[in-house]
């Protein structure tokens, strides 16, 4: 990942800052510039989503993504946040036999990766069962 892109996305990666439309009240994550429901009538403002949700579905990843090899097998879930939006997140601190659909999760701050030994460390969100 490029450092500038990571840096620009810090508010959403660290704090789940998305957007809320003042016209239809829908919450969007990741944030957008135009409300997909109201189009030109939409009034989008930054909105910090609550760090709570539940597991809609999940998969156990055995063939890990780059940089996640040492964590395999791990759980990747689609989480429906209390505010409405769904997001895909790794479920951390979770053995593959611990997870169930409907599990309550909180969104926590974890290391997502690094650009080798000399590069920056990327932090971001993962889900954790509560």
């Amino acid at each position, binding site marked *: 990942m490029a450092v500038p892109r990571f840096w620009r996305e810090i508010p959403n990666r660290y704090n789940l800052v998305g957007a809320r439309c003042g016209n239809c009240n829908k919450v969007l994550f990741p944030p957008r510039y135009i409300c997909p429901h109201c189009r030109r009538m939409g009034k989008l403002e930054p909105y910090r989503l609550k760090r709570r949700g539940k597991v809609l579905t999940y998969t156990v990843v055995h063939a890990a993504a780059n940089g996640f090899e040492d964590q395999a097998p791990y759980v990747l879930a689609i989480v429906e946040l209390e505010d409405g939006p769904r997001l895909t997140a790794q479920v951390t601190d979770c053995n593959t036999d611990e997870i169930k659909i409907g599990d309550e999760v909180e969104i926590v701050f974890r290391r997502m990766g690094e650009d080798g030994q000399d590069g920056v460390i990327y*932090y971001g969100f993962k889900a954790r069962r509560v």
Partner: protein
Amino acid sequence: MDVGVVGYGVYIPRYRIRVEEIAKVWGDDPESIKRGLLIEEKSVPAPDEDTATIAVEAARNALKQTGIDPHDIEAIYVGSESHPYAVKPTATIVAEAIEATPDLTAADYEFACKAGTVGIQTCMGAVEAGMIKYGMAIGADTAQSAPGDALEYTAAAGGCAFIVGKNGGNTLAAIDDTYSYTTDTPDFWRREMRSYPKHGGRFTGKPAYFKHVLAAANGLLRKLQLTSQDFAHVVFHQPNGKFPLLAAKELGFSKEQVALGLLTPKIGNTYSGSTMISLAAVLDQAKPDERILAVSYGSGAGSDAFSITVRDGIEGKRDAAPKVLDYVGQRVMIDYATYVKFRKLLVR
């Protein structure tokens, strides 16, 4: 001083390794280690945890107790000897992750295991002087130990955050005063670019830990004209389970006064987190008007002593976030092979 604790929060990773599991690998006798160090198991950070993530969890928990706007936190200091970067502050990562940026000052502190309590003192001074409204001091570590070294049994991970502000309606404990004792003592060190610290073996006890802890405690008692009888609870830095008990005895404290804050037997030495997490464990259970003595120790060497008086406000606030004993109880045991993989000592 007219400053107090507005909120505090802790975080301890969920993984644990038992003394038996480490002793098996190195041919040590687990019973003599458990007896000698008064330790049963220690916390281990997950592969995606480091001092910054631990500091963020503790900071967020501290904020849950307060209801204050994070932008009113005008200083953040993170004390650690395991900052993720050699150059690039952990404090800015924390500041961003609790939405305290950009109108604040921030820095990382280093002083072995007492860098977090130095942060508390800095916040006390800045609040008292009217420079800042609230300050946050964090002690957090993922302590390193060479495989096979005696430190491997105790070097653990955890963190604690304190929010300091002017005494008033929203403080849950008053910080009456502080006193420090500092000398140049080479009991424990790590050179630049080296992965593991070195220590002076037996030298770490008498001329290092005990000399500084006792001098700081006695200095504060003299300054406040108090005795051990004036305190309901006492906490010391806990490099193992035994040192704090010996220090307490030497100062005339009973086992009961030490009991609430004695955590190393269950979670290990969380380094910069140790004294602060122990203080948090006492605050989790203390009654209003009880007085607490807290004494940190950092190799190199120095101790910071604090007298803290619990206030009525604590009862409505301390249930807002997980308590120390919640974290102590939520644990998953791992074996030595998993431990070395988690600690990235085993790399493919």
